[in-house]
């Protein structure tokens, strides 16, 4: 597939997944409305909306705190800032995102913020100390692609959706378990409702994770297109894969943000034994991401990574 086709295919799949989220939410709320009272279902939906909006508004500062990203003056990281400017221009972003530094030896990066104008890119000091310019640019382009594709927005939404669904399903489950008001219907209805409430959060989780994996492929393709250099992105991923340090601030709640998953390295390694576990990864296996780039760009990565000087060392940033 060409990059354009990949981007289109990924967009379509993302739309389907978001649609699935809305459907799931309506289903759970509908189930509550059916088993108990219609108005209760409506109240649940309204409550979900309020909680969702609050979570969305708070998300930007929350992410910065959870990942330990520090604001830095643009002049202090001028060369890095320039790279971000360049990839933003290549992406056609109206505003260059701010750069924040995460003091962490593991090479990784993420993008956050609901709107492109208010977004920032978090970069670990480890990334600056490992990546040569060409590959660092690819990683930054990957993050800028997330911002341009509104992934940061979509993934925050997905997180909120998943949280809300889990919350409502939990309430529904408890209400039945502790014998709430039952509007008739037989035992069968109750059992169906119980199973529904039990499974809904897992369905939401799977949806969220599959969405996250889609967006990673999409951002890889976008970065390759922006720089006109799919090999740079593939090289960067290979370098991330070979590096074995992991992010200190790794948490399940923010794992989906990073360019390389900080938590599921172990999972992807045992995927041969337990193939199902890959369903619970936030990121596709790096190997699959590299092959997608190789297919699109028609090249094969050399076994040996280039020995160029890391960008952060070259420009004395770390």
């Amino acid at each position, binding site marked *: 597939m060409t990059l354009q086709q990949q981007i289109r295919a990924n967009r379509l799949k993302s739309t389907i997944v978001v649609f699935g989220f809305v459907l799931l939410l309506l289903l759970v709320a509908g189930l509550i409305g059916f088993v108990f009272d219609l108005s209760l279902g409506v109240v649940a939906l309204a409550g979900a909306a309020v909680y969702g909006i609050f979570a969305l508004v708070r998300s930007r500062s929350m992410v910065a705190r959870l990942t330990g990203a520090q604001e830095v003056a643009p002049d202090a990281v001028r060369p890095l800032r*320039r790279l971000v400017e*360049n*990839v933003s*221009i290549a992406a*056609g972003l109206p505003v260059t995102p701010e750069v924040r530094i995460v003091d962490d030896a593991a090479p990784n990066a993420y993008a956050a913020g609901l709107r492109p104008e208010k977004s920032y890119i978090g970069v670990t000091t480890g990334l600056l100390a490992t990546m040569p310019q060409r590959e660092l640019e690819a990683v930054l382009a990957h993050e800028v692609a997330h911002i341009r594709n509104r992934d940061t927005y979509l993934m925050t939404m997905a997180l909120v959706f998943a949280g809300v669904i889990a919350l409502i399903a939990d309430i529904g489950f408890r209400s039945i378990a502790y014998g709430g008001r039952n509007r008739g219907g037989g035992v069968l209805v109750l059992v169906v409702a119980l199973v529904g409430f039990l499974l809904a959060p897992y369905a939401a989780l799977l949806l969220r994770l599959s969405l996250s994996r889609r967006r990673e492929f999409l951002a890889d393709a976008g970065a390759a*297109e*922006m720089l*006109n250099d799919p090999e740079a992105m593939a090289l960067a991923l290979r370098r991330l894969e070979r590096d074995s340090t992991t992010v200190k601030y790794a948490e399940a709640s923010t794992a989906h943000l990073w360019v390389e998953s900080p938590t599921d390295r172990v999972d992807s390694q045992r995927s041969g034994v337990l193939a199902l576990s890959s369903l619970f990864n936030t990121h596709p296996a790096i190997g699959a991401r590299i092959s997608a780039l190789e297919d699109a760009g028609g090249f094969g990565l050399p076994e040996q990574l280039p020995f160029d000087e890391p960008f952060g060392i070259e420009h004395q940033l770390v």
Partner: protein
Amino acid sequence: MLWLWILIGVLAVVALFAVVGYNRLVRLRNEVDTGWANIDVQLQRRADLIPNLVETVRAYAAHERGVFEQVTRARTALQQAGTPGTAAEANEGLTVAIGRLFAVAEAYPDLKASENFLQLQEDLTDTEDKISAARRYYNTTVMRFNTGVQSFPWLLVASPLGFDAREFFSARGDTAVPQVSFGTDAT
């Protein structure tokens, strides 16, 4: 009666497609315009750096008039370029001229060490990087827009509606990789 409804239905579907398609072309055209504005800003920035650069070099090498004239001419050509194609040509011309200027500067160690010169050199490199980034974006938007305009059925009506295919930002015989100007180390 049934036929009338079918006719209305078909017309409604056609109208819907027309509206969606038209809006898409408008959006694509706006993207091209934004892309061009991005290049224009950087070209302007590059042109603005030139007088300062020429003055700085002149302070050390006043007799190298030929080079100064070439650079100034190339800058004027860039500022007068009206279309993406001519602008790309003029930009190439300026790259060649600046390359010559830097080659001249090689012979003056004091100039090469001057703070001002180093800063200008860095700014120029940065602007060149940004021009090439803006160009990648612009050319992508042009390609999307042109594909939209040239595909059926828009091909038939695009031109009367004011959607004319746009020009790429590329000089003649240009490749994706910018050419390095004759043997000078411009960095």
